[in-house]
């Protein structure tokens, strides 16, 4: 039985002292403090380059996890095929960017070579948007009409099927080869904190931050964004005040796929494009979502960095083979101690029956 934590609204309003905030969010504070200590330790032991790494991957996990959290919060779908959107993004970026790069090598143009990677990334995001709309209309819409009970589990298993089809479909169409690029921008790395950081990494991080901020502003301030949040809070209520549920669902799903595809495109220099490239991003974004609490969009953005820190620290101290084992074990412990995540789940419909 899910434990419902009694929220004393009046008390929160009255007492905003730090001591009380800490008291109310003990797990969150503990994890944040712990990750701070870990970050400092990692910085001393391995140097700032590992911290930069943490920020780049953290930004991307956060971006992926935000999409995952949004889809769960609004549509109650535990999206297992999120990594496949990442894969599609990587492929699209590769097939847009490499021909461009080839033609640019033949006749160099400074402006175009700055812009070309962005073209690839934007194309990937658009492809993700289209993919999201297709998946929603083709599968989740009829499923929603046909499902009477157990929606959460059914939707989850259907996404598992989608992931299966898309991974193997990619193998079928593209073959198992790895397609990658060494870097997007042929420029020397930037000096930062005494170490060299490649422009690609900086841009990837910047893109993640800008997109998350943009998504946040969109959800907070626009009419459509408010409608999305309304659907997340209460579907029936939202429908009653005249919100087009189908449109909101499609939009949310498409946004999530688009951001995932964009992440795949932006990280093409790190992850190459191959059929099962989406697995690792999927695992890590799921860790983030479970750590932050299912459906908690703001928590997912913060959680991305915590998980990335855990990942980098594991790589540093235990070796790359343990990279997904130790975070998994930590997540299992987190789930045992605080099942609704350290920031608390905002989703009411977790109970499926």
């Amino acid at each position, binding site marked *: 039985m*899910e434990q419902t934590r009694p929220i004393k609204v009046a008390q929160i309003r009255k007492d905003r002292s730090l001591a009380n905030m800490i008291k109310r969010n003990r797990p969150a504070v503990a994890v944040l403090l712990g990750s701070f200590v870990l970050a400092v330790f990692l910085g001393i032991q391995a140097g700032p380059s590992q911290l930069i790494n943490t920020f780049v991957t953290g930004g991307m996990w956060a971006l992926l996890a935000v999409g995952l959290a949004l889809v769960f919060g609004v549509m109650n779908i*535990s999206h297992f095929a999120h990594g496949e959107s990442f894969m599609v993004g990587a492929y699209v970026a590769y097939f847009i960017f490499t021909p461009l790069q080839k033609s640019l090598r033949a006749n160099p143009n400074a402006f175009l070579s700055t812009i070309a990677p962005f073209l690839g990334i934007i194309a990937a995001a658009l492809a993700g948007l289209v993919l999201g709309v297709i998946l929603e209309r083709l599968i989740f819409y009829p*499923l929603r009409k046909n499902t009477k009970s157990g929606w959460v589990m059914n939707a989850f298993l259907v996404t598992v099927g989608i992931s299966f089809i898309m991974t*193997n479909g990619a193998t*079928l169409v593209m073959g198992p080869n790895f397609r990658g690029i060494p870097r997007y921008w042929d420029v020397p790395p930037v000096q930062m904190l005494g170490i060299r950081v490649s422009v690609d990494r900086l841009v990837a991080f910047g893109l993640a931050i800008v997109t998350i901020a943009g998504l946040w502003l969109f959800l907070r301030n626009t009419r459509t964004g408010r409608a999305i949040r309304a659907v997340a809070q209460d579907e029936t209520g939202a429908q009653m005040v005249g919100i087009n549920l189908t449109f909101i669902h499609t939009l949310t799903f498409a946004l999530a796929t688009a951001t995932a595809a964009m992440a795949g495109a932006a990280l093409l220099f790190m992850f190459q494009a191959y059929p099962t490239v989406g697995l690792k991003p999927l695992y890590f974004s799921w860790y983030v979502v479970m750590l932050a609490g299912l459906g908690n969009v703001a928590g997912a953005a913060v959680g991305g960095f915590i998980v990335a820190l855990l990942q980098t620290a594991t790589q540093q101290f235990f070796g790359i083979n343990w990279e997904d*084992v130790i975070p*998994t074990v930590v997540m299992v412990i987190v789930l045992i101690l605080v099942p609704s995540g350290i920031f608390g789940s905002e989703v009411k419909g977790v*109970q499926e*029956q």
Partner: protein
Amino acid sequence: MTTNQPLSTADRSAGAAGWWEKLKSALLRIGFTPLGLVMLLLLAASPWIPPFNQEHYLRWLIMGAFLAAQSVAFDFTAGYINVVNFGFAAILGLGAYTSAILANTSPVLAIQPGISPWIGIWVGAIVAGIVGLGLGVITLRLRGIYAAVMAWFVGMALLGLARNLVTLTRGPLGMSPETFLDTNANRPYFYIILGMMLVVYITLRLVTRSHIGLAFKAIGQNLDAARASGINPTRYKVLNFTLSCFFAGWLGGFYAHFFGSLTPQTLMHTSKTVEVLAIAYIGGRGSLWGGMVVAFPFVFLTEFIRSNFTNLPGLHLIIYGVLMIAVMTYYPGGLSGAYAWLLSKIRRTRK
């Protein structure tokens, strides 16, 4: 019937009918209809019937029975208490690795206990059962999706362990455990796995036919109502998980000692769970037998595709995915639902 006094024809027919009814009810208790029994006997005879007596078809039959048994054990949790054990393949792999390590005699690995596979598979099953017990204890306070994700995470941790404990498992290189028998023939193995499949099916069927099964169904359909009527969901969920994982580990032992090769990726990966899940769902949730019937044609279909369309890798997995989505979206009852519908239709026309 050898009685000295001849029975009248009426008596005889009544006696025969009574005998028939008795047999039917006895069969039903262990989960077989007469039709099911006929199919089972056909299956048992198939290694002697051409073309199935060829070695590679026999191998497919073995894989079919293996998948069928897995789907029964999987459906026992997914179809009854409505918790999808997403770490199923990893638990199976745990049993396989335990048994394989216990049987190991090669000096490549750190320990060489050299225990017979016939004992090892039981140890593997018990280890898997204990992990299932732990998993059940952890997940019982979480609902639906949390439990699935939790099982998934535990499964991934197990996979990571199998990959990284190189001194015990040789990691991604894989180990080659002892086989059950000193023979290359597949026929004996077919009867081993067929027997194992029947043990899994009949045991779990007996459990679901008892009051425990009723409690499982109640928990799966409405947890709060079940609790209100005096069922302790915790205890039943843990029991269910433990049993299912026990059999998964047991079947894993068969895998290890039949194929004689064991790598983490080919056995414990999440996609293996998805294959079992697809079979169980296409067969029909909560029926146990549905997946068992579907598994055989499926293995033949996928192996046929795999061996004849080698230029299209992964096509058979796409078919799995498409069928699973189609069944879930448009016909949630699966094969067992279709069978029930057909049966009711026939009964109605008879009246």
